[in-house]
């Protein structure tokens, strides 16, 4: 992100910094002003003797105080985020989370200096109910399913066994440390140590996301660390509550321990079940939203949030519930909702999670300054040290077990990254904050904050150079290749087949069974219309074509060309055939009328518009309700059509720029394609009818369009075709056959 113009970079950071300082001061003034305005303005002139003049201008801050403060905080967070990205030099070295914590420290310090002790702290309720869910939902909804399920065993081992190991190792060793005379820690009993261990052991998804997002390591490592951070929530919840309950009692019996194990299964499986139910509900609801596209994204958000809250009601794992809901809901919802809604969902999730993350880190900084601290050298130092040691030992030990069962083993480099990526974050802090007030709590909090700072700053900053130093495989840029998709599917079937030949039911066999079950029963219920029978390859292909066509139309007449720049066109790959090859893939108007009649007769939903799509026409006119939008789109489509027509000239004409030409098809390839936006009911029949019709057409054709027509006529024809097909509705042509 280097700024290519040095003059500007000299100018803008200073300006930004100045602006931010001014803003900070204004903010603080308001924050303090909110406290000054205690004298009630609502005692109006009743108690006074003389009549007050009508107040032209009044100051009533109390009225809007709460939303005002919230908005100010969020605005501050976002401006900070903006500032960091304008100043490129720092953001290369220091991860964003560190910078945000520093800002939080500054803000907290300023507030403390100005106000005394009245600084806001990261309220646990605020954190768990409002700040955490968007991040987890964003993570869960866009979780890459394939690597997640392939590595699920490994992830679970790390999450459950790894966390358990961490808890007991840290708790136990800290207890031993506390027994050392002279440290002043004699009053910390075993249970408190274990409680502390349970708080500090869990890898934090927010911190992991914040740091790993910037280093772009390969998918496997990313999903291992990230999956672990998500799934260890169940363990943390159970252990935390267990030890918290019993730290009052003073001892834990074996029965309680067994109950704890049972509780673990209940918490995790229960959370998943709750998420599953809400996910199915959400998917089912989205089946019927074709008439109210505007509120579609809200269903996604609300069902997921309800899943989280419902799980929290029963003390189940809210995070797992949220993840399960997002994962279950996604394939069905995406098949049902419009393209715009999908974009909305994506961007809202990213936006909220971004804001949440920023706020969390800033608040972490503020709370550090604010909270009462009790610094105990021994405790803190040993905590940090033990966290590192236990993480390393845990990862190495577990990997040696895991590698016996993995096909693709984890190398030492992988293990190092997994161990080093075990960052702690705000969840640990919030859990610590929920403890009952005591001197021990302050000490714990101090230690927790120190560990968080250490992991985020030291590990966060050094992981990027380390990744480069160790030459860890980076994330490969996936360009959505149709070949890779074909081969992915092919490989799936191949491996399933080989497993069947071998005679044991392995991973692929069960996955295949699940897919078949899904296709046969579940999709019928949860996906509207004919989309339910669409195979994955085709939907992938359609999405890809849509994306490419849109890109081409939007780049339009500018020099910006699509990424694949080659002069290979369709005619290069078609086998040599009689001169028919040069014909335009158009159909005559009358034939087109026939098709449309047939289609209309079969359509149930008369508001549908079918697009005749062929790769070469690059015609995209998405289903639009807004008429002016239609007009605009039509114009753009026309431009696109003319441009694509210009590009698809036959070989004997001169071509200047090496653009990606889409040439001709020898056969009549009018493939009725419906893009992602239009409602999907009863398309299968019309589609196959159209195809059948087209296949019949060559027989009883008027040869007019099969011959290489004069350029002009074909142009006219094609343009007429486009205009004809981009008709806004069936009203003009409602002819029943």
């Amino acid at each position: 992100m280097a700024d290519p113009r040095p003059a500007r970079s000299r100018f803008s950071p200073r300006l930004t910094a100045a602006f931010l300082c001014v803003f900070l001061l204004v903010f603080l003034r308001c924050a303090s002003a909110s406290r000054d305005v205690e004298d009630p303005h609502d005692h109006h002139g009743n108690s006074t003797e003389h009549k007050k003049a009508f107040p032209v201008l009044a100051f009533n801050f109390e009225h809007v105080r709460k939303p005002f403060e919230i908005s100010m905080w969020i605005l501050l967070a976002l401006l900070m985020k903006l500032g960091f990205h304008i100043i490129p030099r720092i953001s290369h070295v220091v991860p964003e989370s560190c910078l945000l914590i520093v800002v939080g420290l500054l803000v907290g310090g300023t507030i403390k200096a100005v106000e005394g002790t009245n600084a806001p702290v990261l309220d646990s309720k605020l954190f768990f109910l409002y700040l955490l869910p968007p991040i987890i939902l964003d993570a869960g909804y866009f979780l890459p399913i394939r690597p997640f399920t392939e590595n699920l065993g490994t992830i679970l081992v790390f999450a459950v066994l790894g966390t358990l190991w961490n808890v007991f190792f840290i708790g136990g060793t800290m207890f031993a440390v506390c027994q050392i005379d002279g440290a002043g820690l004699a009053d910390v009993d075993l249970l408190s140590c274990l409680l502390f261990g349970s708080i500090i052991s869990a890898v934090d998804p927010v911190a992991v996301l914040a740091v790993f997002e910037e280093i772009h390591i390969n998918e496997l490592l990313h999903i291992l660390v990230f999956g672990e951070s998500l799934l260890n929530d169940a363990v943390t919840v159970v252990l935390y509550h267990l030890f918290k309950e019993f730290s009052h009692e003073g001892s834990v019996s074996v029965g309680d321990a067994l109950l704890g194990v049972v509780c673990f299964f209940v918490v995790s499986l229960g959370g998943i079940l709750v998420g599953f139910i809400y996910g199915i509900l959400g998917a089912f609801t989205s089946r019927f939203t074709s008439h109210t596209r505007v509120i579609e994204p809200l269903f996604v958000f609300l069902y997921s949030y309800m899943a989280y809250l419902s799980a929290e009601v029963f003390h189940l794992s809210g995070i797992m519930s949220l993840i399960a809901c997002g994962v279950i809901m996604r394939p069905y919802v995406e098949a049902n909702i419009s393209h715009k809604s999908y974009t909305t969902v994506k961007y809202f999730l990213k936006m909220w999670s971004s804001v949440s993350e920023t706020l969390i880190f800033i608040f972490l900084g503020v709370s550090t300054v604010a909270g009462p601290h009790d610094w105990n050298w021994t405790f803190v130092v040993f905590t940090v040290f033990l966290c590192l040691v236990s993480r390393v030992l845990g990862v190495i030990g577990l990997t040696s077990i895991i590698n016996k069962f993995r096909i693709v083993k984890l190398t030492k480099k992988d293990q190092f990254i997994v161990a080093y990526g075990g960052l702690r974050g705000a969840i640990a802090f919030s859990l610590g904050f929920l403890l009952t007030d005591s001197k021990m709590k302050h000490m714990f909090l101090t230690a927790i904050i120190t560990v968080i700072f250490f992991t985020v700053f030291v590990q966060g900053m050094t992981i990027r150079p380390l990744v480069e130093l160790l030459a860890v495989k980076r994330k490969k840029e996936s360009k959505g290749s149709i070949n890779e998709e074909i081969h992915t599917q092919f490989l799936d079937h191949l491996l399933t087949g080989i497993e069947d030949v071998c005679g044991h039911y392995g991973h692929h066999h069960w996955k295949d069974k699940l897919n078949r079950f899904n296709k046969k029963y579940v999709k019928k219920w949860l996906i509207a219309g004919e989309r339910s029978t669409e195979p994955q390859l085709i939907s992938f292909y359609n999405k890809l074509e849509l994306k490419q066509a849109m890109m081409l139309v939007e780049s339009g007449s500018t020099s910006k060309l699509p990424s694949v720049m080659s002069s290979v066109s369709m005619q290069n790959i078609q086998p040599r055939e009689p001169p028919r090859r040069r014909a335009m893939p158009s159909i005559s108007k009358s034939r087109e009328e026939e098709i449309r009649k047939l289609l209309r007769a079969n359509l149930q939903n008369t508001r549908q518009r079918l697009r005749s799509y062929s790769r070469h026409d690059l015609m995209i006119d998405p289903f639009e309700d807004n008429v002016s939008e239609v007009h605009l789109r039509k114009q753009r489509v026309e431009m696109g059509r003319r441009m694509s027509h210009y590009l698809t000239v036959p070989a004997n004409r001169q071509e200047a720029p090496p653009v990606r030409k889409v040439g001709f098809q020898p056969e009549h390839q009018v493939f009725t394609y419906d893009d992602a936006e239009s409602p999907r009911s009863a398309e299968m029949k019309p589609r196959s009818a159209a195809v059948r019709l087209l296949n019949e057409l060559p027989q009883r054709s008027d040869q007019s369009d099969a011959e290489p027509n004069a350029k002009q006529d074909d142009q006219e024809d094609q343009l007429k075709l486009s205009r004809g097909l981009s008709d806004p509705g069936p009203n003009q042509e409602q002819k029943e056959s």
Partner: protein
Amino acid sequence: MGALQSLPGQPEYIDLAEKTGFSFEQIGVLHKRFKQLSHNEETLRRDHFNEIPDLACNPIRAQIVEAFFDRRNFRQNGEGTVEEIGFEEFLVVMSHFRPPSLHMTEEQRESVRKEKLRFLFNMHDTDNDGTITLEEYRHVVEELLSRSGALGKETAKSIADAAMLEVASISMGHMEPDEFYEGITFEHFLKLLNEFEIESRMNIRFLNMDTTTLCK
């Protein structure tokens, strides 16, 4: 076609283990499966494969079965197909699905990759001419979509065409309008699936223990 003794003792296994890289236990398990599939005969034929019930619902069943009888997969630089295979050939074909071991050098890993991609290539290139033509690729896509019903041929054609165009763009870069892209050669195939990480994906777990299965 290798000679197969009816009672393979240790020396036979050693030879096979060396050739294919399986462990003794794995060879034992696979041998048991071989005998189960072939009804205790010495060789397997195509109809033995067709009897496997789970394989029946696999869309690319025919190609998988063909791969077992394709000489190119026997690592003896042969060509053409055979009608029946012995245990050794069975094992050799299976060995294509072994994962790369942990302690492999880069070049060993590369050769494993090439081998697996060669297997895939052979599956697509049914007429043995060293290139995957457009027709053959179309056939592949049609088979993949064969279970999906109505859309069938037209869609498969478009998808195959798009895929072929992509391969041509990646491999050839610039082509004159008069030039004709014959088909995907093995080099192009390698280039195409460069990022595919096939050495970690095209593996199945071969068990050391004998698990009695429900499928035949």
